[in-house]
């Protein structure tokens, strides 16, 4: 019983680590730009696939992480600069544009990587079995959690300890006033969108290394991402941390005790929060 619980909690933490990396970028981009990037899931999938190909070709997992995340960051940057910028402020065109991109990515990925589920091969040195509190648990999952904490900490540093971060926060609070005081909000937009893409690229490589990548993962991941940031409060980093932890455990225990409902379960806290606190746990009223 105890062992099972411990494993479930650790699984939940692993899940939460991925959830945080997924949600943090999306929530920042939404908080600042009010643009819901519906190609977030497709970015994840593509990042994972690119990582897969790099691992396949070079057997170098760290290189795959770098390649997967940087290429998605570049894609995000170019997409924002050349496309999104043209429909700024229009909810419907933004939605259509990001959905269109996600479909294009999904189909191109299907053509290149096929329909079979793929998983990135982890080198043994990154996945040593670790004995902890009487159980043995895959070491890579601890690396995952560590990376997620590291990312959270770096994001916090950037946001709260640099001038760039202050301008991002000012833009989130009131982009009009920020721009009227000489902050180049357009530049900040590009930066944040690229950062968001970078993070989801990281999530793709990490997720693809312990879950499977297959056509359809993109929509599942997009759904998760949306639930995470709606529960936490859109635009809030702390909210994303908390909601990732809640949803990670819920998914992990749900899979163990009520597998047929586990996917449904993660919507429950979101439903409750939307009913009593529509701005999310840590969100501010928009």
């Amino acid at each position, binding site marked *: 019983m105890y062992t099972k619980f411990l494993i479930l909690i650790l699984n939940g933490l692993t899940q939460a680590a991925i959830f945080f990396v997924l949600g943090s970028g999306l929530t920042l981009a939404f908080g600042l730009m009010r643009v819901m990037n519906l190609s977030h899931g497709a970015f994840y999938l593509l990042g994972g696939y690119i990582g897969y190909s790099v691992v396949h070709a070079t057997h170098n997992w760290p290189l795959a992480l770098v390649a997967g995340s940087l290429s998605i960051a570049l894609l995000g940057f170019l997409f924002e600069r050349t496309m999104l910028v043209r429909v700024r402020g229009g909810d419907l065109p933004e939605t259509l544009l990001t959905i269109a991109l996600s479909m294009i990515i999904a189909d191109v990925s299907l053509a290149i990587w096929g329909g079979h589920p793929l998983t990135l091969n982890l080198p043994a040195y990154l996945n040593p079995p670790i004995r902890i509190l009487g159980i043995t648990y895959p070491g890579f999952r601890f690396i995952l959690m560590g990376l997620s904490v590291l990312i959270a900490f770096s994001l916090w540093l950037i946001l709260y300890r640099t*001038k760039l971060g*202050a*301008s991002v*926060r*000012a833009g*989130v*609070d*009131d982009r*009009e*006033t*920020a*721009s*009227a*005081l*000489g*902050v*180049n*909000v*357009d530049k900040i937009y590009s930066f944040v969108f690229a950062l968001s893409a970078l993070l989801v690229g990281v999530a793709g490589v990490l997720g693809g290394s312990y879950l499977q990548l297959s056509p359809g993962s993109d929509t599942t991941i997009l759904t998760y991402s949306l639930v995470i940031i709606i529960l936490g409060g859109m635009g809030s980093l702390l909210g994303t941390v908390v909601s990732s932890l809640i949803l990670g455990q819920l998914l992990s225990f749900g899979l163990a005790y009520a597998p047929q409902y586990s996917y449904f379960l993660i919507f429950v806290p979101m439903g409750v929060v939307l009913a009593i606190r529509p701005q999310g746990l840590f969100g*501010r009223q928009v």
Partner: protein
Amino acid sequence: MEVSDLHTYYGKSHVLQGCTVTVEQGCVAVLGRNGMGKTTLLRSVMGLTPPRSGSVQWRGEEISRKKPFAIASMGIGYVPQGRRLFPSLSVEEHLTLTYRPKRTANQWTPQRVYDIFPELAQRRKLSGSRLSGGEQQMLAMGRALVTNPSLILLDEPSEGLAPIAIERIVETCRELRKANISILLVEQNIHVAAAFAERIYVLLSGVTVYESGAKAFLENPDLRQKYLGL
């Protein structure tokens, strides 16, 4: 700065219907009742609600098609109505975020803002939204000053403030005049305008209908009655 025949719309509503204002050295106040387009005038100058026609010339350059941040970096400071501080930023961050150094002896630095508003120095680490109304107005002005502007747009600085806080703001504006910063002031409170404005414009339904020296207008009850109902 020369604003001529400015027309601005919010969607279909025609708010500014031919607004002409000239600011040379000194302080110009634009008066008018609520809903006459005063705030829209400043927003149009700043590029926040770009005018549909007309022109805004700043030091001989047309700026009415430029973006707000570009206009701001040409030396125009903006103090919006209702202060609009950033709740996620501390007092100190407000001043360092917009600080744009200028290579002159009397440039505005965050320190200089603290010198004229010592109460802000004591609240350095506090969020901008947790200050009193008067302090918020000081911070909103300080945040515009550290951009080292030659002209500052002040939108209803006295709104919602206690008389003693208003006095501080008026005092500060006089200081700015001494420091050779021009002011374009939009006000409902004519006593504030009277305290340091040199020229007066009256805005009626988006049209500048009256212009004169400040004294001539403020000392003439008939004119005040006619345009402001005071």
